[in-house]
């Protein structure tokens, strides 16, 4: 078995030590630090990008919050405006209504006055006509002109005792 040939041990061990040491130095001084640096740089870059993404997300959230706040403010403002306008309009409407009611009642009063006046005038005319008719009838019946004063008195008495027109 060639493995047990003691004469071959020394050159193998010597070359093993040489090659292994060379490889170890290569690894220790060159390869491992380089690979480690590279992996670290990559890790850092990934973390950087993650941080940036986090920041962007935060910014977006802030923007959204600001937008929502603005929207809420605008909505609140609009509601206030609507409430104000409603209040103002209902105030105006009430005022106008009150004015209208006042105007209408004034007109009604004026119209009633006119009616009352017309009724009085009519009554006066009737009175005069009645007095004339009564005087004429009495003259025809008695043949002499009655005293105008007593006729007027009698007519007034008769008219006043007569039923008044409905309404006022």
């Amino acid at each position, binding site marked *: *078995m*060639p*493995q*047990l*040939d003691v*004469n*071959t*041990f*020394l*050159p*193998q*061990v*010597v*070359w*093993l*030590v040489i*090659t*292994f040491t*060379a*490889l*170890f130095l*290569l*690894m*220790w001084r*060159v*390869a*491992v630090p*380089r*690979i*480690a640096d*590279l*992996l670290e*740089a*990559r890790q850092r*870059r990934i973390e950087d990008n993650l941080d940036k993404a986090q920041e962007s997300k935060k910014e977006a959230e802030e923007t959204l919050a600001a937008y929502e706040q603005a929207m809420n403010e605008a909505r609140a403002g609009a509601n206030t405006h609507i409430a104000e306008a409603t209040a103002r309009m209902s105030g105006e409407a009430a005022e106008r209504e009150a004015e209208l009611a006042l105007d209408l009642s004034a007109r009604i009063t004026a119209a009633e006055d006119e009616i009352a006046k017309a009724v009085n005038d009519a009554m006066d005319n009737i009175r005069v006509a009645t007095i004339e008719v009564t005087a004429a009838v009495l003259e025809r019946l008695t043949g002499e002109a009655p005293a105008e004063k007593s006729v007027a008195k009698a007519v007034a008495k008769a008219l006043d005792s007569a039923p008044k027109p409905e309404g006022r």
Partner: protein
Amino acid sequence: MAAGQSPLSQFEIKRWVPIEIGDVDVSLTNSAAFMVLTVVAIGVFLILGMRRPAIVPGRWQSMVELSYVFIANLVKDTVGTEGRPYFPFIFTVFMFVLVGNLIGMVPYGFTFTSHIIVTFTMAMVVFLGVTVIALIKHKIHFFTFFMPPGVPLIMAPLLVPIEIISYLSRPMSLSVRLFANMLAGHTLLKVFAGFVVALGLFGVFPLAFVVVLTGLEIVIAFLQAFVFTILTCLYLNDALHLH
């Protein structure tokens, strides 16, 4: 390979360039040449992979990074953060054994890990190294390692010798495991390859077996490199943390 040769002849050491310094034989043997080739192959692999390091790696770079991260995670899982300073050594051990095993799978190649003296030397370096690390770190407390905690004192005369023997046999098991796997696999391959010609037409059966066995041997090349590395890590963990 000529017929009639022993299946073990593939393991013969040939002095390609006989060199002697004083009385010391430092001839460049086929074994030494393949060690040099292994180191060159690893160097080329690393240089190719890291020639233009990019944030987004290419194929070669991915393989370099993959092997690095694989061993880095192994060290982190078995030893913890204290294992970081020893990572270059462990990575070297892994790559050296792995590439040595794989180059040995190339036909007409030589597997230097199939020689007990090579694996034993590496195992002894690991063994002496972790023992020195443990002695420096724990000083006299290192010897409590041979007396597991919670064991009644009366058991000590029995347990301590067992623990010491188990500790001293570590370089044996570490080196023999790798050496025997390589020796057995390559011998078996050669034996069945011999049947291919001897059986004539029926040689296709041993040929198919050799093909399958070659695949298995490549898996074993990875596995044994991994086992050697993980045991190194475990010994280092024992040295740093005792129990």
